[in-house]
C-alpha cells in the first residue's frame, strides 16, 4: 500500500461519541502524522479510552470521521494494533504467553491453515524484544503486572501494524519495565510506526512523547509537549487537582 508521507496516519474530524445523554467525546479533531509517538493525557473518565476505541472503529460514532492513512477506518482492518487497559483483560483466560503473541498474526493467517514458520519466527522475535522469551508456556495470569504488559506489547509488535494504540501500558508497571517498554516504543517509532499511548503520569508525559493530546471530553490541546503542558490548559482540564503538577514548574521532573 502506498503511503503518502503527507497524509496523516490518523485523521479524526469532528468526532462525537456518547454512551447516553452525556457525550464521552465532543467535536474532537486531530491529525497525527506518521512516525510520531503521541501521548493522550487527561483525568479519569475524560474519554481517553473512548478515543482509542473510536480510532479502532470499535465504538459507534454519533458524528465525525476517522481516517487511517486517508482511508475510512472500516477499510483499515489489520493496520491497527491495540494494547488493552489492564482492567479490561480476563487474566484467568486459559491462554499462554505464546498464544497471546500469536494472536497478533491471526489476522494474516488464512482460516484453512495454521501458523507458518514465518509467523512463529516473528512471534519469537517479538517476545524476545520485550524479553518475555523465557515465559512462552506460562498462563498469562501467572505473570507480574509488568510482564503482562510486555506480552501485549509483543502481540502488537507481532502484528506488524503501522499504527499502535496503547491504553495505559505503564499502569501497574515497575520503573524498570516502564523504561524498557518505552525503549521498545521508541524503536517502533524509529521504524516508522505511529504510536498513540494513553498515559496517566503527567510528570513524565513531557519527556516521553513527541506530541501530546490533552483531552477532557473536548480537545484541549494537541502539539509538542511544551505547548500542551501549559499551566492555563492544565488548570482548565484538571481543575482542583493542580497539586499533581505543581512540581512541574521546576524542571526537575522525577525519575
Amino acid at each position, binding site marked *: 500500500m502506498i503511503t503518502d508521507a503527507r497524509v496523516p496516519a490518523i485523521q479524526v474530524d469532528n468526532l462525537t461519541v456518547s454512551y447516553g445523554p452525556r457525550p464521552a467525546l465532543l467535536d474532537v479533531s486531530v491529525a497525527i502524522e506518521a512516525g510520531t509517538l503521541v501521548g493522550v493525557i487527561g483525568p479519569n473518565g475524560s474519554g481517553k479510552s473512548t478515543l482509542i*476505541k473510536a480510532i*479502532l*472503529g*470499535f465504538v459507534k460514532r454519533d458524528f465525525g470521521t476517522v481516517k487511517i492513512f486517508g482511508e475510512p477506518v472500516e477499510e483499515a*482492518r*489489520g493496520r*491497527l*494494533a*491495540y*494494547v*488493552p487497559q489492564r482492567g*479490561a*483483560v*480476563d487474566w484467568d*483466560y*486459559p*491462554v*499462554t504467553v505464546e*498464544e*497471546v503473541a500469536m*494472536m*497478533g498474526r*491471526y*489476522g*494474516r*493467517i488464512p*482460516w*484453512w491453515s495454521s501458523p507458518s514458520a514465518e509467523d512463529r519466527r516473528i512471534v519469537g522475535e517479538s517476545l524476545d524484544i520485550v524479553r518475555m522469551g523465557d515465559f512462552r508456556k*506460562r*498462563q498469562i495470569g501467572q505473570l507480574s503486572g509488568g510482564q503482562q504488559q510486555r506480552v501485549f506489547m509483543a*502481540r502488537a509488535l507481532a*502484528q506488524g*501494524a503501522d499504527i499502535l*494504540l496503547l491504553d495505559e501500558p505503564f499502569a501497574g508497571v*515497575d*520503573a*524498570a519495565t516502564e*523504561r*524498557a517498554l518505552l*525503549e521498545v516504543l521508541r524503536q517502533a517509532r524509529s521504524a516508522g510506526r505511529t504510536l498513540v499511548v494513553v498515559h496517566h503520569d503527567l510528570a513524565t508525559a513531557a519527556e516521553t512523547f513527541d506530541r501530546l493530546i490533552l483531552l477532557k471530553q473536548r480537545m484541549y490541546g494537541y502539539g509538542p509537549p511544551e505547548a500542551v503542558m501549559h499551566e492555563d490548559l492544565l488548570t482548565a482540564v484538571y481543575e482542583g487537582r493542580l497539586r499533581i503538577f505543581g512540581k512541574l514548574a521546576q524542571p*526537575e*521532573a*522525577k*525519575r
Partner: protein
Amino acid sequence: MIATIFSPLSETFIQKALLGGSLVAIVCGVVGCLVVVRRMAFLGDALSHAMIAGVGAGYLFMKLVFGKEAHAPAMLLGSLIAAGITVGMIAFVSRVSRLKEDTVIGIMYCGVFAAGVVLVSVFRDHIHIDIVHFIMGDVLGVTDTDLWVAGIVGAAVLTVLTLFFRAFQFSSFDPVAARAAGIPVALVDITLTLCVSLVVVSAVSMVGVILVVGLLITPAATAYLLCDRLDRMMGLAALFGVTSVAGGLALAMALDSAGGGAIMCFCTAQFLAVLALAPRYGLLAGWRRRRNMIPQQLFEDILGSVLRGKPPVAAAVVASHVHLHRGRLARAIATMKSDGLLLESQEGLSLTDEGLLHARRLQRAHRLWETYLARVGVPEKELHEKAHVLEHVHEEEAVDYIDDLLGHPERDPHGADIPEDFVHVEGGAPVPASFLREGRRATVVSAPAATGLAVGQRIAMAPRRNEGRTWVAKREDGSEALLDHAAADAVMVQPDSESGLRPAVRPAK
C-alpha cells in the same frame, strides 16, 4: 462375571443412549468452553427454556398449515426463533429498564417457558408433545432421529469451531484487538450464538431443559480447572462429557433412576472431585501450598542470618538467631535448599547465587528502612527492631521510593554499607546515574545539557562529596562532572555489568 457387568451394553436402547449421549456431550463440552470463558452461561439457560415454545409453535404451524405431524426441521427452526426472541428481549429490556440483566434473564426465560407450556397444553389435541419428556429428557428413549440430529449438529458445529478456532479464541479474549487485527468480531459472535443454540436444541431431547445447561458448562468448567490453554480445555471438556454420560448411565442402571438426572449427578460429582484435587487450581493443592509455605518472614530471617554470619554458618548458629522449633527450622532449611537458595556442607550453610541475591535485597531494604527511620526521628535503640519488621516490606517499587526519598544514601545510621540497587543496575536496562556507586563504570544514554555530560560518553563514578549529596562522574579524560540529586536522576546511563554481586564491603558495627 464380566459378561453380567457388560450385559446391559448389548441392549439396543443402552447402546443408543451411550452413543447419542456421548455425541451431545462432546459438542456441549467443546462449545461450553467458549460459553464459560465468555461468561455467557445464561444464554444456554434462556435457549433451553425458550425451546418448548419454539417446538410447540413449529409443530402447530406445520400441522395446521401443511397437515404434517412432528415435522423435525420446523420444530428446530421454531426453537431457534424462540431462542432468538428470548435473547433479544433480554437485551432490550435490560437496556430500556433500570432492572439488572440477571433479573431480566430470569423473567424472560420463565415467561417464554410458561408460554410454551400453555401453548402445548391448549393445543394438546393437535400437538403430541410430552412436557415431562421436555423437562426431564429421556436419554434412555433416544430414537434414530435423535441420533441423526445429534450427529449432524455435532459434526457441523465441531467443523465450524475447528476451522475458525483462532477467530473464536481471539474475539472472546480481546474483542477490540481482534477487530483491529481484522477479525469480523460481530460475525464470530453471531456464529457462536448460533452454535450454542443448535447444541442446546439437540441436547434437550436427551437430558431435558433443566439439565442441558449443566451439560454445557459443567464439563467445560471441570476442564477449566485443569488447563491453561483453550484448545486443551476443549479436548478435556469433551472427554469429561463422555465420562459423565457413561458414568451416569451406569449409575442409572444400578439405581434404576432417570437417565438425565444420573448423568448430571455424575457430571457434578466429577466436577467436585476435580475442584478438590486439581493439581494447580484445586482446593487441596491450595491448602497444601498454604500449609507448606514457610512464612515469608522466617525464610527471610534465615537468609539474613546466613549472610551476616559469614558463610558457611552452622545450622545451630542460625537456630540461635531465628527463634523457632527445631523441626520447623529443619523443614524451612530443606525447602530453601530445594528452592535453590541455600547450600549445606559439613561446615554448615551457605548461600547460592540466588540466595545471595535475595539476602542482599533484604539487607538493602533493612538498611534503607533503618536510614529512613533515623531520618524521621525514631530513637537509635529502636531502629533495628523497627527496621527488622519493615525490611519485610521489600517490594522493589517501595524500596526504590524510599531510596530516592533519602537521596540514595550509601550508608545506614550504623555506618554499614547499603547494598547498591543491583536489581536495576544489573538489570540490563539504562538507569539514572544516581543509582551508581563508587567504582561503577557506565555509558551515558541521555543527559540534560546542563549536566556537562554528553550522550555516549564513558564515565566512572568517583566517591561522592558533600556528605553524599554530590555525585562525581569522572570522564575518560579525567575531568569530573558534579551532579546534585536532581541532575543525577536526570542523567540516564547504561552501567557496565559486573559479574555477580559485590560482597559487603563493611559489615555493620
